[in-house]
């Protein structure tokens, strides 16, 4: 039995989720007495792929083609499915990122496999994997089991922790695969990345600002706190709709669903659609001037008060703490 773990790279750098997927595959494989085969797809990626061995991959494969340097849904899906077939992998793991959510369903169709998307927990029960996945924007969680011979799981980023790689690096096997032009019927022609900005879906700490901040100019206090914590800036829908912040930062039912270790909600009331996207965070802090704001009902720690005073004070205090260490 083999588990194929698709390890995502962008710009020839493995993503954090690549390690998470390999590590999660290792954990499951140990219980199923299976082998973990990691796969990296890209232009010239063999040099970066060996590190996956340290997270538990028994073997590391690289599929390379100059045209794979940028993502293509059709070509990447083909690469993953072809390798799964070649290796006779019964289980395929991907991460539930923009890339994994895009090509995962295609891989499932190619392998005639059932797919469990955006899993937040995996449990081995005999020879089966039971996956937990949130539905209704996190207002409920289902346990699902896949019955097809091949099974595909995509794992929510940031939930399965990779830790640090403690094993030895693997040698990387390059697997030749032929691609036709038709395989690149979709091609990425340009990528615009906000420089150095961490996405809420990937961040371990998120500081979110809401309408109570009164205007976009006051988001500097949110950015500063996120900055000292090494976290990302999030936004409620009210501030996105008002045009204060980009939609990519929106947390909630029609934004992103996040599960960071620490979520700080500032001047956010805690509407049901917002809670849906963040209530699975490990720790929640709320700063709101209204002691009856619903956000306090899900918060582990709260301060009732004016965000404009409290937030800069938190930033100063965190800086002090970090200075000490």
């Amino acid at each position, binding site marked *: 039995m083999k588990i194929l773990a698709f390890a995502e790279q962008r710009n020839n750098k493995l993503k954090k989720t690549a390690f998470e997927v390999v590590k999660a595959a290792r954990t499951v494989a140990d219980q199923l007495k299976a082998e973990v085969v990691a796969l990296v797809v890209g232009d010239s990626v063999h040099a970066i792929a060996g590190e996956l061995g340290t997270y538990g991959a028994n073997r590391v494969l690289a599929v390379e083609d100059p045209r794979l340097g940028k993502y293509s849904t059709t070509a990447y899906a083909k690469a993953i499915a072809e390798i799964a077939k070649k290796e006779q992998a019964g289980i395929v793991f991907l991460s539930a990122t923009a890339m994994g959510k895009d090509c995962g369903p295609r891989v*499932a*169709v190619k392998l005639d*496999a059932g797919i469990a998307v955006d899993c937040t927990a995996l449990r081995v029960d005999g020879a089966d994997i039971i996956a937990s996945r949130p539905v209704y924007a996190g207002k409920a969680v*289902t346990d699902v089991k*896949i019955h097809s011979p091949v099974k595909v799981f995509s794992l929510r980023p940031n939930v399965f922790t990779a830790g640090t790689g403690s094993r030895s690096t693997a040698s990387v096997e390059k697997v030749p695969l032929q691609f036709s032009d038709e395989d690149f019927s979709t091609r990425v022609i*340009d990528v*615009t990345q*906000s420089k150095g900005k961490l996405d809420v879906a990937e961040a371990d700490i998120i500081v979110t600002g809401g309408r109570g901040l009164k205007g976009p100019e006051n988001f500097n206090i949110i950015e500063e706190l996120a900055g000292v914590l090494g976290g990302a800036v999030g936004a409620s829908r009210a501030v996105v709709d008002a045009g204060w912040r980009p939609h990519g930062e929106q947390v909630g039912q029609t934004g992103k669903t996040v599960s960071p270790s620490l979520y700080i909600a500032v001047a956010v009331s805690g509407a049901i659609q917002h809670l849906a996207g963040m209530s699975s965070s490990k720790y929640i802090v709320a700063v709101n001037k209204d002691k009856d704001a619903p956000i306090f009902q899900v918060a*582990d720690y709260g301060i009732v008060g004016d965000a404009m005073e409290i937030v800069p004070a938190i930033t100063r205090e965190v800086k002090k703490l970090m200075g000490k260490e």
Partner: protein
Amino acid sequence: MKIVVCVSHVPDSATKVNIAGDGKSIDKTGVNFIISTYDEIALEEALRLREKNGGEVVAVSLGGDAHKETLRKSLAMGADKAVFLKSDTQPDSFAVARGLADFIKEYSPEIVLVGKQSIDTDNSAIGCMVAEMLGWPSVSVVVKLEISGGKVTAEREIEGGHEKVETKLPCVITAQKGLNDPRYPSLKGIMAAKNKPIEERTPAVIPSKVEVLSMKKPSAKSAGKIVGSDVSAVPELVRLLHEEAKVI
């Protein structure tokens, strides 16, 4: 231009979820159902494409009889026709995609628009599955779409940025918020919808590959502690985060 929009019929986002007696689904009592948020955006984009290029917009939904309400709403927004693929079982994404793809293959539109995710099961799978079944290209989570002479340029949202993707018709596009602002159905549209046809079909529904074993509410967080009510509480808050929660 022949355009297909796939719409799902889902609980309103403000719904307080309660688990039904079967322990596997939600209790539908008193729940208000709507056309899924992103499907509304997909439909709006379809209507704009038709306004620009002429042609026909067909809304299609697979599910139980209640889905006809959502099709009726799609007609009220401006779809020309509706196709109801009746299925009384609870098919998984694979089976839904198969039913939709079979219909699409027969109708052979130039473009298929779906939502980036259905706000009930949150699978984000149908669009790319349908594309794969049809052997078509696709672009998912699209916030900007341009089509000229069979060439498609779309911008999709990725972590911390955007990808500009080039492809060609026929293709599948999955709509993300930001693509457009969906219109409200006009009174005229609502009246006209009453006379528009909903064609009912029985799709071949393949057995589900994914079985839902159980559904639960996430363990409710109990309200935590209010550390204080002014700036003086900040040092204690930071200490708790550092020493008790150990998150900073």
